[in-house]
């Protein structure tokens, strides 16, 4: 009796103690151990009884119910423990008695019904066979669509019939198998699985004859299904003929079925938040620019992945569970020193984080919706990456083994050639294979010493800041802000009334002061609750830099400052895309290749610096690189080539830089696969402007560029200037205003092409009358009576004609109702302190709308003058 056998017996005994009916997991483990025990015993005749006992139990698994099986296992364990002392001792279950045959094929209904079933279907099965054979014998031409249609219909209805009958008499095995075939027929035409249908018929007849003869069927239902599915898969492949990848895609499609979330949604929400925290921690570790990771770091990463996996499985977030499981395995190997935690692995971990974030996002959306998640291919792709990586590791092991052998043969001739060959074969643009390249040297030269040194051991205490937090749903915060806005408005209305009408009552006036102060404070606190540090976004950018640089073979050092600067959540969210685009651009177009840098006398490693600072009511974000800078001449030439700028037009340097934001400027040629996501720089600018922000560029050729984004702190409240036009009030965002002025007669003129213009410094600005644009009566008609608001969107300037400027307002932005949604040029409205409504101007869209209108007017005039031109235009269209 070997130790391993008695160990296995002890193992089984320990497991059986924990086993109870319905505990399939433990049962699996026990059965596993039994199979191993059996294998360990087989070589020795002495253990013959044990082998038989194992076989018996293993066979009974399908037929016995849990209670009987557990009883049998308990008997087995007791007997086996006795057996270890004396191989004739103990009574194994199979020695006790023959257990009755039971399975899902055993009929539960009364015999009469079953006989009826058998009689009916024995004949019908013959018809079924005849129909199948008939179709099978037809050649391609004879298989008309009508015939096929008829055949398919017949097969479906007959199978349905069998299923129903089998179910009603309790032949659950037949019911199950029939249902399985029906499932296949859902996506496959009946004539393509003729062999399977015939097999099915034979199996059913075999089961039926077994019943009538009282014998045991040859194949249990599950075995039949298992056998059939494999074969049918193959047959389908050859049946289809042309597409080789067919079965695989069918398989992965099957895996990509939508799935339903599970568990308490409230806890799920917390899980998502906690998982994100974990991801952030891991990301921080990964991006801390450390070259080696200590065991503690790797443990922490492993644990985070592990926890996410565990949690996700609770809520049935299948993709998270699967990707986390694969990553966990990888990290387990890394922390145990089986695999070196190198850049490739770091990349995988970063990918993992990115994917988890998007999966968590998807899950959040699903909670808000119907709880269904439609899997996306990214998870599969990620799994494939890990798979590739593991395969490459296996390959390396093989290579290093060969290298070892080679080295043994020719000791002093340096490293073996094989690994180098592998390196040469590695296409640099294939990231899946890159690990080989990076892994080879370390594994081959010093497989063990390359294990990470526990140098920078971080203790968790250093990282944890002692602040206490309450997690609040964003929606609730939004609503709170909404109400605070309302409150501020109504309190200021109340205060105004009090001061007007009760100014003699000192107590009331004092109270209004207090109310004013408190409501302002509440507003500030409310705003600050929505503020989050920009750090998270910046960290994402460090990832972007890392990825981009790696992909295009540049060396870039990323720095950030001011990452604790806080701004509104919504702003941070909306900033993510444009910022990512700009950072990618900085690395892709800004920073030169290491060779070019050296040639230019710069250090080979480029720098990208991201900073955030507060500036009054706005926040300023800078993306600075020390790359090659923008070349105004080149830019201008491109712009002229693309028809963005008319030839000969003179532009300031700054204006030329801004051309990169012009629609159509950054086309596919400029944007490499790294920078591109189909988002041009014009979209970046649009996004920034949508947030009422603006963007500026400074650059020095050969030294680098700096993109400056200025954004409002929050989107909920806007600093603006209140103006009047007739009876209407308009609020113009302070950020877009350059100046107000009362025009002098000599500043005004009318041009043919651009209508009214205002001479402002050395420029001619178009004048747009708000009264005309919004058709407001009773506004000042004469520009000399009116006030000009000079606005600058960064891209263009114009003068907006209003009646009067009243002063500063902090406007709580409210959206216009559905009725006004289509009104161009307005961003929303706000309730002013006197209770009236002010319309908030969206300067860029207002200018666009105004210009469109002007063009239309011009065209109409032209048409009136030259009817012939109208005709020719009509023909063109």
């Amino acid at each position: 009796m070997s130790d391993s056998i008695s160990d296995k017996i002890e193992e089984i005994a320990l497991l059986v103690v924990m086993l109870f009916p319905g505990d399939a997991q433990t049962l699996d483990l026990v059965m596993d151990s039994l199979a191993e025990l059996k294998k360990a015993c087989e070589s020795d005749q002495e253990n013959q009884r044990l082998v038989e006992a194992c076989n018996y139990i293993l066979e009974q698994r399908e037929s016995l119910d849990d209670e009987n099986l557990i009883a049998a296992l308990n008997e087995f364990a007791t007997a086996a423990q006795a057996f270890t002392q004396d191989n004739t001792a103990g009574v194994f279950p199979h020695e006790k008695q023959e257990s009755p045959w039971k399975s899902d094929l055993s009929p539960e209904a009364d015999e009469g019904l079953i006989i009826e079933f058998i009689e009916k279907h024995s004949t019908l099965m013959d018809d079924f066979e005849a129909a199948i054979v008939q179709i099978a014998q037809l050649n391609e031409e004879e298989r008309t669509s009508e015939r096929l249609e008829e055949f398919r219909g017949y097969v479906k209805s007959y199978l349905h019939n069998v299923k129903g009958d089998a179910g009603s008499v309790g032949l659950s095995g037949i019911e199950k198998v029939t249902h399985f075939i029906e499932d296949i027929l859902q996506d496959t035409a009946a004539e393509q699985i003729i062999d399977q249908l015939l097999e099915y018929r034979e199996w059913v007849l075999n089961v039926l004859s077994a019943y009538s003869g009282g014998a045991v069927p040859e194949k249990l239902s599950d075995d039949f299904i298992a056998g059939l599915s494999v074969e049918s898969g193959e047959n389908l492949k050859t049946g289809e003929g042309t597409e080789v990848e067919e079965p695989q895609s069918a398989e992965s499609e099957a895996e990509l079925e939508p799935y339903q979330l599970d568990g308490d949604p409230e806890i799920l929400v917390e899980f998502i938040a906690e998982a994100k925290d974990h991801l952030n921690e891991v990301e921080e570790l990964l991006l801390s620019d450390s070259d080696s990771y200590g065991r503690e770091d790797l443990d922490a990463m492993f644990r985070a992945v592990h926890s996410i996996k565990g949690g996700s499985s609770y809520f049935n977030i299948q993709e998270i569970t699967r990707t986390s499981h694969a990553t966990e395995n990888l990290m387990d190997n890394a922390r145990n020193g089986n695999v070196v935690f190198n850049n490739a692995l770091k990349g995988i971990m970063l990918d993992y984080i990115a994917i988890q974030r998007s999966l968590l996002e998807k899950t959040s959306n699903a909670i808000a919706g119907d709880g269904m998640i439609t899997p996306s291919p990214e998870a599969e792709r990620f799994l494939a990456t890990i798979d590739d990586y593991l395969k490459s590791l296996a390959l390396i092991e093989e290579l290093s083994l060969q290298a070892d052998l080679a080295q043994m043969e020719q000791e002093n001739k340096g490293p073996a050639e094989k690994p180098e060959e592998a390196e040469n074969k590695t296409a640099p643009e294939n990231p899946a294979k890159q690990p080989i390249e990076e892994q080879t040297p370390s594994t081959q030269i010093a497989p063990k010493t390359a294990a990470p040194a526990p140098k920078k051991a971080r203790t968790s205490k250093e990282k944890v800041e002692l602040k206490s937090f309450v997690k609040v749903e964003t929606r609730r915060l939004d609503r709170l802000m909404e109400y605070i806005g309302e409150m501020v408005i109504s309190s200021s209305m109340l205060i105004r009334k009090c001061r007007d009408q009760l100014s003699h009552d000192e107590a009331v006036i004092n109270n209004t002061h207090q109310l004013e102060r408190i409501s302002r404070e509440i507003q500030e606190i409310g705003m600050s609750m929505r503020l989050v540090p920009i750090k998270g976004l910046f960290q994402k950018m460090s990832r972007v830099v890392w990825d981009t640089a790696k992909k295009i073979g540049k060396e870039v050092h990323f720095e950030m400052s001011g990452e604790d600067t806080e701004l509104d959540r919504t702003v941070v969210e909306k900033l993510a895309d444009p910022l990512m685009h700009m950072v990618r651009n900085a690395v892709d177009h800004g920073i030169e290749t290491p060779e070019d840098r050296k040639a230019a006398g710069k250090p080979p490693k480029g720098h990208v610096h991201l900073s955030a600072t507060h500036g009054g009511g706005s926040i300023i974000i800078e993306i600075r690189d020390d790359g090659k800078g923008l070349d105004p001449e080149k830019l201008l030439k491109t712009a002229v080539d693309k028809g963005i700028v008319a030839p000969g037009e003179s532009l300031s340097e700054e204006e030329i830089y801004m051309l990169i934001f012009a629609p159509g400027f950054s086309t596919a040629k400029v944007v490499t696969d790294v920078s591109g996501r189909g988002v041009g720089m014009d979209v970046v600018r649009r996004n920034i402007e949508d947030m009422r922000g603006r963007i500026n560029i400074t650059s020095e050729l050969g030294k680098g560029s700096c993109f400056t984004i200025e954004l409002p702190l929050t989107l909920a409240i806007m600093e603006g200037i209140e103006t009047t036009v007739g009876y209407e009030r308009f609020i113009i965002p302070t950020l877009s205003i350059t100046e107000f002025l009362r025009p002098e007669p000599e500043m005004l003129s009318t041009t043919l092409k651009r209508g009214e213009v205002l001479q402002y410094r050395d420029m001619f600005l178009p004048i747009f009358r708000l009264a005309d644009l919004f058709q407001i009566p009773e506004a000042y008609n004469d520009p000399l009576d009116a006030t000009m608001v000079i606005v600058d969107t960064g891209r263009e300037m114009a003068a907006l004609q209003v009646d009067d400027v009243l002063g500063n307002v902090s406007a709580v932005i409210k959206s216009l109702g559905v009725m006004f949604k289509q009104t161009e040029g307005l961003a929303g409205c706000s309730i002013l302190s006197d209770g009236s409504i002010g319309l908030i101007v969206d300067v860029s869209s207002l200018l666009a709308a105004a210009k469109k209108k002007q063009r239309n007017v011009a065209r109409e005039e032209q048409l009136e003058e030259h009817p012939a031109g109208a005709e020719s235009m009509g023909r063109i269209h």
Partner: protein
Amino acid sequence: MAVIDKNMAILVVDDFSTMRKVVKNGLKQLGFNNVTEAPDGKVALEKLQNGEFAFVISDWNMPNMMGIDLLKAVRADERLKNIPFLMVTAEGKKENVIAAAKAGVSNYIVKPFTVNALEEKINAIFNRG
């Protein structure tokens, strides 16, 4: 079937607070309300040594002290050695389950589990006596 004391003090050990909440919620649904939480084996052991717990549910993978080490420490402690101990594992890895069984675990449960599964495990533990 013996009646299980619904007021018994239960210690739930997991480093992931969501998971503790999941377990706690499950226990609550089963009528167990006297639940204390611990974030790792080390804290758990202190709590056990200074308290009167009747049941421990512990995760396997934790910082500071792993679940299996907690189990060993509990079984080695004269006063605590008979406390029923349910180990939570992420997958039914056999070597883990067997290691835990050898260390004297009362039962184990594999994540993810349903309240039903938890109830079954608790019944299995407390009805064996």
